[in-house]
């Protein structure tokens, strides 16, 4: 038995972690009991309180040595359950609070309970608070089983959001999502059972002292990783994501895309970096990054071929999830352990900037949809004039996601690129750059349609409340200026990384993805462009015509492959294959 580590004592301010869970949960209970007429009021009371708690954690954390601990019921682990927060938790708590806040402002006009249609607002606000509580639990829980319960809480809150409008397609999407997510959580639970059987505890801190390269542990790690990948929708386990994220109401899509997939990703980070940093081995990490690369290629190419804006953004989420997994091989040090905090910081920053930017983009598209009554990309001409704020929010979010300085994405990319140089894995640098170009491609594609002049003025069919656009814009700006924040008390971001964000060097780094992205957009998007009749365009087409035809053929091939992979049985087989491959590579490493 180990001597009780200092982490097994409640620290001052640890009660904030309890409050970060209890406040949203109390909001759920209260909103449910008070009923339809008061849900919005309850939510609008809980949201600022939750935000204040997240800020308080941010303030307190550096003062208490970077760690907050709370022993629930004053029972120390392994018997009891501890809540713990470190820099990662604090950053994620704050991101979640900010995004939820913006979505709540955005949704306040949408989900206003009227006398007749009280159902959707009732469900939406309760589920929003429940997602918040579940995510906060995920960020601060120190026990693998508590994490399982939180994961299920998250699923149960997310699934009904998908089918809120009750159409058959969204019901089908929700059912697929639920079943696949359940499969994922059962795999996770299986690993938990094995770990308890081997070590007699599920506490992350205690496990990290006890784990060794036992065959059972490796099996458990492979199963849990696969389960979490299924919940994160990493390629090729993404069958549920596009229909679910594209079918939900805009506010719900924003939450699902920005935050919900990050929950299981965060548990995966905890599992690999905190529970067993020495076990997975480089091969398994390369496998994860390879799947991430697949996600970037499939997600981006299929996104460029979408006709509907919401589906385009859903596929972009798929690609961005792939981007998050590039950090795993880069975090390996010379000793074969996951030890580079810099790569971890880069991955987490990417998650944060994607959360803010993607939520803003989904919200902006929601406004465009309400305004136009459709979200066909080819029908976007002139929308920049009709809905300037919505398009601006989309543009700023897109630019932040592309990695334009000083966005969080650019800082994340800088950190990861430094680690590719450090570890000599140049191929991931190529993928990182290509990912940036693909992101640019679909953002440029949408913006070029939106900014194209229209022959006749657009008539808006729905109202466009200012508060919605402002919420989206604020979130997008947040993402754009993330790179300027003082990260060093929470994440190990070296000072020189931030200073490189400006200057000639930075400008060249900006131009490359923009030009590459524009080229990719021209080559891979099958839709006729509004400028298509101009002379310059025709001249260009004469030059690149054959190349473009080839690229379009490649694109349709990828799209067909994506359709096959999104069949239920194909996805299930991929799931089992991934888990066996992970197990094999982990065994090879030990």
């Amino acid at each position, binding site marked *: 038995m180990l001597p009780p580590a200092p982490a097994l004592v409640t620290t001052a301010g640890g009660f904030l972690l309890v409050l970060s869970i209890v406040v949203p949960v109390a909001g759920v209970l209260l909103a449910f009991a008070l009923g339809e007429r008061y849900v919005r009021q309850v939510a609008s009371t809980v949201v600022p309180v939750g935000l204040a708690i997240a800020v308080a954690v941010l303030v307190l954390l550096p003062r208490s040595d970077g760690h907050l601990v709370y022993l629930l019921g004053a029972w120390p682990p392994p018997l009891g359950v501890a809540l713990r927060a470190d820099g990662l938790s604090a950053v994620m708590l704050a991101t979640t609070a900010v995004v939820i806040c913006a979505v709540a402002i955005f949704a306040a006009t949408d989900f206003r309970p009227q006398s007749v249609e009280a159902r959707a607002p009732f469900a939406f606000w309760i589920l929003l608070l429940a997602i918040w509580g579940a995510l906060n639990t995920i960020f601060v829980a120190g026990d693998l089983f508590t994490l399982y*319960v939180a994961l299920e809480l998250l699923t149960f809150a997310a*699934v009904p959001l998908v089918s809120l409008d009750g*159409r058959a397609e969204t019901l089908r999407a929700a059912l697929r999502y639920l079943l696949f997510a359940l499969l994922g959580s059962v795999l996770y639970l299986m690993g938990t059972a094995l770990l308890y059987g081997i070590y007699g505890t599920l506490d992350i801190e205690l496990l990290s002292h006890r784990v060794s390269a036992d065959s059972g542990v490796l099996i458990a790690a492979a199963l849990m990783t696969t389960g979490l990948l299924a919940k994160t929708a990493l390629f090729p386990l993404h069958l549920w994501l596009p229909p679910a994220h594209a079918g939900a109401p805009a506010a719900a899509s924003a939450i699902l895309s920005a935050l919900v997939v990050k929950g299981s990703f965060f548990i995966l980070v905890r599992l690999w970096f905190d529970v067993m940093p020495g076990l997975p081995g480089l091969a398994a990490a390369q496998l994860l990054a390879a799947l991430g690369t697949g996600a970037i290629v499939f997600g981006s190419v299929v996104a460029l071929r979408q006709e509907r804006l919401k589906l385009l953004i859903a596929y972009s989420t798929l690609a961005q999830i792939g981007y998050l997994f590039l950090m795993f091989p880069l975090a390996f040090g010379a000793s074969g352990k996951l030890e580079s905090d810099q790569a971890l910081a880069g991955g987490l920053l990417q998650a944060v900037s994607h959360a803010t930017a993607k939520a803003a983009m989904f919200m902006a598209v929601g406004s465009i949809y309400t305004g136009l009554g459709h979200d066909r990309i080819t029908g976007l001409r002139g929308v920049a004039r009709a809905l300037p704020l919505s398009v601006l929010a989309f543009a700023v979010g897109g630019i932040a996601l592309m990695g334009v300085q000083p966005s969080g994405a650019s800082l994340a990319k800088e950190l990861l690129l430094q680690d590719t140089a450090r570890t000599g894995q140049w191929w991931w640098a190529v993928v990182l750059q290509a990912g940036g170009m693909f992101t640019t491609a679909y953002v440029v594609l949408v913006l070029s349609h939106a900014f194209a002049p229209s022959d006749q003025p657009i008539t808006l069919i729905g109202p466009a409340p200012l508060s919605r656009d402002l919420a989206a814009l604020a979130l997008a700006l947040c993402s754009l200026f993330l790179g300027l924040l003082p990260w060093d008390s929470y994440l190990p971001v070296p000072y020189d990384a931030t200073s490189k964000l400006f200057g000639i060097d930075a400008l060249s780094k900006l131009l490359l993805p923009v030009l590459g992205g524009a080229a990719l957009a021209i080559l891979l998007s099958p839709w006729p462009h509004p400028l298509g009749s101009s002379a310059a365009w025709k001249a260009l087409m004469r030059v690149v015509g054959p190349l473009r035809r080839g690229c379009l053929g490649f694109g349709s091939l990828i799209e067909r492959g994506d359709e096959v992979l999104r069949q239920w049985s194909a996805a*299930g087989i991929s799931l089992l294959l991934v888990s066996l491959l992970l197990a094999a590579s982990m065994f090879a490493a030990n």
Partner: protein
Amino acid sequence: MSAVTVFGLCAAAAVGLGLYGLIANPQPLRKIIAFNLLGSGVFLLFGIVGRRGAAAGFGNDPVPQALVITGVVVAFSATALAIALLLRLFQIAGSTTLNSRAAASPRSDPSGH
């Protein structure tokens, strides 16, 4: 052979059968049943682990038992939610297929509405 071995193999087999059923059975209801089978296999795994940890006068470590009780209730709620979604889907669409392509064909206007 002890009870742990016998039921341990039984649990592993239930997991395998559940995984297969979840992947290969086309009807959603069968998938839900397979999920329950899979879940019960995993719960049995906890039972084996707890049985091996019998000590202090208990024939089974109480902690995994408590985890299983929590897990059973969660699995039941999941089943109920999945069934409700399935029945609603059947009520609206008249079929229960999860295959998006087969289902999307009757209504394929580009806006999706």
